[in-house]
């Protein structure tokens, strides 16, 4: 019988809660918006792969009633953070369609970030809006001297985030894959992963994509960091809602023990 035991967590700073203004909103693909929000407190602290909870606060009963987690996709020196938001349901659509001047309640930065191995090549594998953390990471890592490959897959061309904006934010062109071949290379983005030499492989996207990569990492013997997604209540570890299964069978909280895990730390049974 697996039991839940918290890891010996290193102390992380308390998150910041504040009301923040949406500075700009731009539709960048089908059902997908790029939001910039004024949050100097979070922009100053956010690390690659961390997330924020974004909602409307206590007065608001319509979806989203509960705040939703989003990766910090970018941060600017003037205190803006960027979020990549895709509408999947009623709640996420309301967030995706936020307009400049609207206010939201932000909580963050939350969770444990990606780690880069010094001297390695960095390969980011992004599926859909799993692109978000890599917009932030790829640009920073390149400025720090890392060689970075950004592999980015979508089902179809209309879902693909503005590639010029990706290049602007990350300092290099992404390698785009679409499953129907309507843009970039045809097939699944995971097919584009080549692991040679010292390499840090990072992935964010739908669970089947992460599962496929985890299988390769186990077979080919490379370290893989994944950013997982699960329904989340609080974002800070109190509700214990957002669990994923650890390799030892124990439930691990995506919010405080993740969202970034080594793939080898988790169980990857087919759903």
């Amino acid at each position, binding site marked *: 019988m697996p039991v839940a035991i918290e890891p010996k967590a290193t102390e992380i700073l308390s998150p910041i809660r504040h009301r923040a203004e949406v500075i700009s909103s731009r539709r960048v693909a089908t059902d997908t918006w790029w939001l910039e929000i004024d949050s100097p407190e979070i922009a100053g602290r956010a690390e690659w792969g961390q997330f924020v909870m974004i909602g409307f*606060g206590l007065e608001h009963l319509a979806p989203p*009633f509960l705040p939703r987690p989003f990766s910090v996709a970018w941060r600017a020196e003037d205190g803006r953070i960027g979020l990549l938001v895709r509408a999947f349901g009623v709640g996420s659509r309301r967030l995706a369609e936020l307009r400049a001047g609207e206010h939201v309640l932000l909580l963050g930065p939350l969770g444990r970030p990606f780690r880069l191995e010094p001297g390695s090549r960095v390969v980011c594998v992004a599926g859909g809006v799993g692109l978000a953390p890599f917009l932030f990471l790829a640009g920073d890592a390149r400025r720090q001297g890392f060689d970075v490959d950004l592999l980015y897959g979508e089902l179809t061309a209309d879902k693909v985030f503005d590639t010029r904006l990706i290049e602007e934010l990350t300092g290099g062109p992404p390698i785009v894959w679409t499953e129907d071949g309507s843009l970039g290379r045809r097939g699944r983005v995971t097919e584009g992963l080549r692991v040679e030499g010292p390499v840090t492989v990072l992935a964010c996207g739908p669970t089947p994509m992460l599962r496929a990569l985890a299988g390769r990492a186990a077979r080919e013997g490379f370290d893989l960091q994944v950013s997982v997604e699960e329904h989340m209540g609080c974002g*800070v570890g109190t509700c214990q809602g957002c669990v994923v299964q650890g390799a030892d069978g124990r439930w691990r909280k995506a919010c405080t023990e993740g969202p970034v895990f080594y793939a080898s730390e988790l169980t990857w049974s087919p759903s």
Partner: protein
Amino acid sequence: MVPELRQSLFGVEFQAPVLLASGTCGYGREYAGLIPLDELGGLVTKAVSVEPRSGNPPHRVAETPGGMINAIGLENVGLDAFASEKLPWLRENLARAHVFVNVVGRTVEEYAAVVSGLDGEEGFLGYEINVSCPNVKGGTMFGTDEAALAELVGRLRSETERPVIVKLTPNVPDIGIYARICEENGADGLSTINTFPGMLIDIHLRKPVIGNVSGGISGPAILPMGVYLTWRAATACSLPVIGIGGIRSGEDALQYILAGAHLVQVGTASFVDPAAAATVQEGISSYLAGAGIGSLSELVGGLRLPEHGQH
């Protein structure tokens, strides 16, 4: 004049009437640095069982209209780890806010083992006995069986002199019967109410959204049911009642107070905004100030009922 929020209850003074509900504040530490815990009335810990419990598979939470559904499954570190790893933080960091330990078990013996195992420790005031979890097999057994509840409460009374609060389930025909059973068997108070059982279906997958299939519904959607059942419980017995269910403002809390609650708990609202409990506390205070009411205790049970009508 600043209204008086203090209340004397369970042999101590509560500086304010708002507590964080079990299952929504972890073991307190999760909120350290984020909200001023020690300025609240107190908190109720995540349930503690004799052995650690692993909890339910995901999804464990989802949004519902005006609220949420959850089926965590009482995941907790267990008695020993609670005493050695969680309680010390509460003891060292909370000087004024009172702590209740939420206790759960499968048998009377398991409940009693948690209470007797913790009773000599410092850092908490009393126990909130969970007889009302809808998300584990047998979780509501003690809350829906009159004889079992009587035996459990009587046994726990014999194990401790600390306050014993029983958290009741709404899922019974007459909560007053269960309130009186708690009173007759030596409980010191009641928490009303736990979540309502519910279900959410993903029509595309044709599957339950929640891994446990069903779960407990909480949040603003259940506020009127909580107010009603708190009123029923408070008028059925003379025990002090802690009102719970959907509270997200001072006005919401005051409905419970007028219905007969002495204290309230804020739960799901803390997920929406970690500052919810403090907001509720400030809302109560500003209502009293605006209405020229000097003390919160003047309003407890102060509901004015119509002379005619079915109560």
